C-alpha cells in the first residue's frame, strides 16, 4: 500500500476514546500493526470472499459447486432480509442466551502483568460455547433452501452437539461424522448427540481424525446434496463458508466492543482468542479489525512444542496449500500430503486454518503464536482457581496467550503509566465441563482404579 497510515501515538496508548460515540471514528494507532495494513479509507470488515488476499476460493469438486452457489445465493439474500436477521437475533437472545457477558477477571489479571483482563463469556451460551451462533444461522439457511437434512463433522463433539441441537430445534435430520477413535474417547458426547436425535457415524478412513470426518462429510454431501446442507463448524472450507461462518460469529466482537466501551470508556489494547479453524477468533477479531489501536492475537495449539513436530500450529509453521476447499496455511509434508496435527485440545487439533486468518497474518493485522499443552493447562488451572470459571482446554490456549500479552504490555509502559492502563479482552469461547476428565487426569486428581481414571487415560473429554 502506498498511502499507508503512519502511526502517531505510542504503541497502544491512544487506542481508547472518551466514549462510545467517538469510537467508530477512532484512529488510534498501534505501531505493531498499523504499518502493515489499511489506508485510512479502507476497511477490513465484512470481507465478502471468495478470496482473502491470496487465500480462500473454491478448491472443490465440480459436483459441489452448484450447492456452494445455492448456499451463497441464499446467504446473500438472507442477510438482506429483515425477517431472517430478526429470526437470528431472536434465537440468539431467547434461545442461545445472548448477549453473553463481558466479565472482568481481576484475580486472573494479577498473572497477566497486572493489566485489566475482560472475558467474553461465550461459555455461557446454550450448549456451552460459541458454536451455537453458527449452527443456528446455518440451520435457518438450510430451511430456507428447503433442505431437510444437515450433516456435520466434529472432533471432540462440541460442534456435533451444537449441530444436533440446532437440528432438533428446527426439525431437521442430523448426521454427525466423527473419527472412530474420537467416538470411543468421547462416548458421552456421542450419547449427547444421540439424545438430541442425531445419528453419529464413526469414521474409519484415513487417519480417523477430524480432517477425515470432514472428508467423509464431503463424500456424503456429494451424494445427497439435493436434500442435505453441510453445516461446517468453522470459518474454513470453500467459499462461502469462511465469510458466512464469520458473519454468524460477528456478534461476539460487536457485543464485546460495545461492552468494553460501556464498562471502561475505551477500546482494549489487545484481544486474544484461540485458533483451530478460527471461528471464535474471527468472530471476536471482526469487531476490532478497523480499530488500528487494537492488537489482535490468535493462539494456535503448540502441542508438545512446535520443535517437537507434534502440534497444530498451522500459521506458525505451515505452508500455503489447499485442503477442504480453501487455499490457506496448511500442515503438509514435502509431497503436499496433509500432516497429522497434535494437541491436548481436540477442538484445535486440525491441520488447516481459515483463509481470512491466513490473510490477516500475512498483512500483519493479526499476530499468531503457538501455546503448548503445558502452558494451556497451567492457564486452565489458573482461571479455575482465580475466577471460579473452568474454561474449555481450547479456550485455555487463549488465556495462556493473554498472560503473555499482558506481561509484554506491562513491560512496555511509559514513565507515567500503570499496568492497569492496559486492557485485554479474551474470548472465553467455551466452558470446560467436557474437559474435566482430561484435566483431572492431567493434574493427577483421580484415585487409582477409579472408572474416571480409566476414562481420563483414554483422553475422554466429557
Amino acid at each position, binding site marked *: 500500500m502506498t498511502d499507508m497510515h503512519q502511526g502517531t501515538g505510542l504503541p497502544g496508548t491512544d487506542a481508547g476514546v472518551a466514549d462510545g460515540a467517538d469510537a467508530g471514528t477512532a484512529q488510534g494507532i498501534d505501531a505493531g500493526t498499523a504499518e502493515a495494513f489499511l489506508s485510512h479509507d479502507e476497511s477490513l470488515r465484512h470481507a465478502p470472499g471468495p478470496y482473502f488476499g491470496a487465500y480462500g476460493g473454491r478448491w472443490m469438486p465440480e459436483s459441489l459447486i452448484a450447492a456452494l452457489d445455492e448456499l451463497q445465493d441464499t446467504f446473500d439474500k438472507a442477510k438482506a432480509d429483515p425477517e431472517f436477521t430478526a429470526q437470528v437475533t431472536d434465537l440468539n437472545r431467547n434461545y442461545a442466551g445472548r448477549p453473553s457477558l463481558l466479565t472482568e477477571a481481576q484475580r486472573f489479571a494479577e498473572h497477566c502483568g497486572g493489566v485489566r483482563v475482560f472475558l467474553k463469556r461465550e461459555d455461557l451460551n446454550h450448549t456451552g460455547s460459541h458454536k451455537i451462533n453458527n449452527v443456528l444461522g446455518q440451520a435457518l439457511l438450510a430451511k430456507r433452501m428447503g433442505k431437510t437434512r444437515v450433516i456435520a463433522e466434529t472432533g471432540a463433539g462440541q460442534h456435533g452437539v451444537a449441530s444436533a441441537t440446532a437440528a432438533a430445534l428446527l426439525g431437521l435430520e442430523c448426521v454427525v461424522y466423527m473419527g472412530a477413535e474420537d467416538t470411543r474417547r468421547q462416548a458421552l458426547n456421542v450419547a449427547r448427540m444421540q439424545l438430541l436425535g442425531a445419528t453419529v457415524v464413526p469414521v474409519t478412513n484415513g487417519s480417523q481424525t477430524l480432517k477425515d470426518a470432514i472428508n467423509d462429510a464431503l463424500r456424503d454431501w456429494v451424494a445427497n446434496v439435493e436434500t442435505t446442507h453441510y453445516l461446517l463448524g468453522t470459518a474454513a472450507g470453500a467459499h462461502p463458508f469462511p465469510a458466512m461462518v464469520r458473519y454468524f460469529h460477528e456478534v461476539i466482537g460487536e457485543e464485546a466492543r460495545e461492552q468494553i466501551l460501556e464498562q471502561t470508556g475505551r477500546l482494549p489494547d489487545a484481544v486474544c482468542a484461540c485458533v483451530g479453524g478460527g471461528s471464535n477468533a474471527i468472530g471476536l477479531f471482526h469487531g476490532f479489525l478497523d480499530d488500528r489501536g487494537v492488537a489482535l492475537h490468535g493462539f494456535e495449539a503448540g502441542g508438545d512444542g512446535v520443535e517437537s513436530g507434534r502440534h497444530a500450529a498451522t500459521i506458525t509453521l505451515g505452508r500455503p496449500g489447499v485442503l477442504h476447499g480453501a487455499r490457506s496455511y496448511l500442515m503438509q509434508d514435502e*509431497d503436499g500430503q496433509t500432516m497429522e496435527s497434535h494437541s491436548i485440545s481436540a477442538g484445535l487439533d486440525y491441520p488447516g486454518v481459515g483463509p481470512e486468518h491466513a490473510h490477516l497474518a500475512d498483512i500483519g493485522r493479526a499476530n499468531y503464536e503457538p501455546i503448548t499443552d503445558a502452558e494451556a493447562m497451567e492457564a486452565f488451572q489458573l482461571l479455575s482457581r482465580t475466577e471460579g470459571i473452568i474454561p474449555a482446554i481450547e479456550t485455555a490456549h487463549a488465556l495462556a496467550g493473554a498472560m503473555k500479552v499482558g506481561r509484554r504490555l506491562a513491560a512496555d509502559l511509559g514513565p507515567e503509566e500503570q499496568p492497569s492502563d492496559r486492557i485485554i479482552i479474551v474470548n472465553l469461547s467455551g466452558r470446560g465441563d467436557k474437559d474435566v476428565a482430561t484435566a483431572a487426569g492431567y493434574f493427577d486428581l483421580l484415585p487409582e482404579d477409579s472408572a474416571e481414571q480409566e476414562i481420563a487415560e483414554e483422553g475422554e473429554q466429557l
Partner: protein
Amino acid sequence: MTTDPADRPGRVLGGSRAAAAIEKARSEGRAALIGYLPGGFPDVQTSIDAGIAMARNGMDLIEIGIPYSDPVMDGQVIQEATVEALANGFTVPRIFDVVEGITRETDAAVLVMTYWNPVMRMGVRAFAERLVAAGGAGLITPDLIPDEAAEWLEISEELGLDRVFLVAPSTSPQRMQNTVDASRGFVYAVSVMGVTGARTSVGAAARAVVDAAHGAGAERVCVGLGVSSSAQVREIGAYADGVIVGTALVAALRDGGVDAVAELARELSTGAAKTPAGGSA
C-alpha cells in the same frame, strides 16, 4: 530414456494425445476405453506392470492416480488402495516413474489423475515439466475447477498438456460452457452425484451430462464413476466418446494382481464379459 514427447505418435489434434487416442477409437467405430489405477499400488513396479497390461489389453488411455491423504471424491476401494500405496512408501515424484514406465513400453496416452495440493506443493510448472519429460499426456483434476486454474491453464497451454476438468449432473449450463471451453483432450462427465465406486447402474443422469457437454461444444466427452462391467461400457459407449473404469480395475489388481487387470481390461474392451469382474465393492 524417453523419446521427445513431440515425436511420439498421436501428437495431433492441436497436440492433444488424449484427443488422438479417443479419435483413433472413434475411427474404429467404438468408444474409447480409459482405465484408472493408483500409482504405487501396491508398489511402483506393479503399478507400471498393471498400466502396461491395461494398454496391451484394449485400453486406449491410461489414467494413473496420485495417492493423496484426503481423497474426497474417492470411495472405499480406491481410498484403501491409496492408503496402502502411501504406507508402502509412495512419494509424489514416483508418479513420473510410473508414467515413464508405461509410456516407454506402450503407445498409450497416459494421464495423471491428481488432487491439486500435491501439484501446488511441487509447483505447477515444475510438476508439468516433469510430466512432459516422463511422456505424460496431461492431468485430470477432480478438485480443481477452471475458476481456480489460471496458472494450470497457462502452463498446460504452453507445454501442450491435456487438462481434463470434470462436469457433473449438478453443473449449470453456464458452468458447463466454461468447463468445456477450458478443457483440452476431453471432458470428464461424472455419471452420478457421488464418489468413485462400482455401481450396477449409472442411471439416466450420465446421458444428460454427456448431451449437455456435447451441446456446449465438447468434441470428446468420457463418462466415469460407477462403471464396472462390459455391459455398462457398451451402454455408455453408445452415447459417450469414452468410458472410464476405475474401482473395478483397482479391485482386480488387489485381488488378482496384474493378470486379473489384464483379463478385466480384455473383457471390458470386447464388451463381452458375462459378469463384472473384480467384485462390486
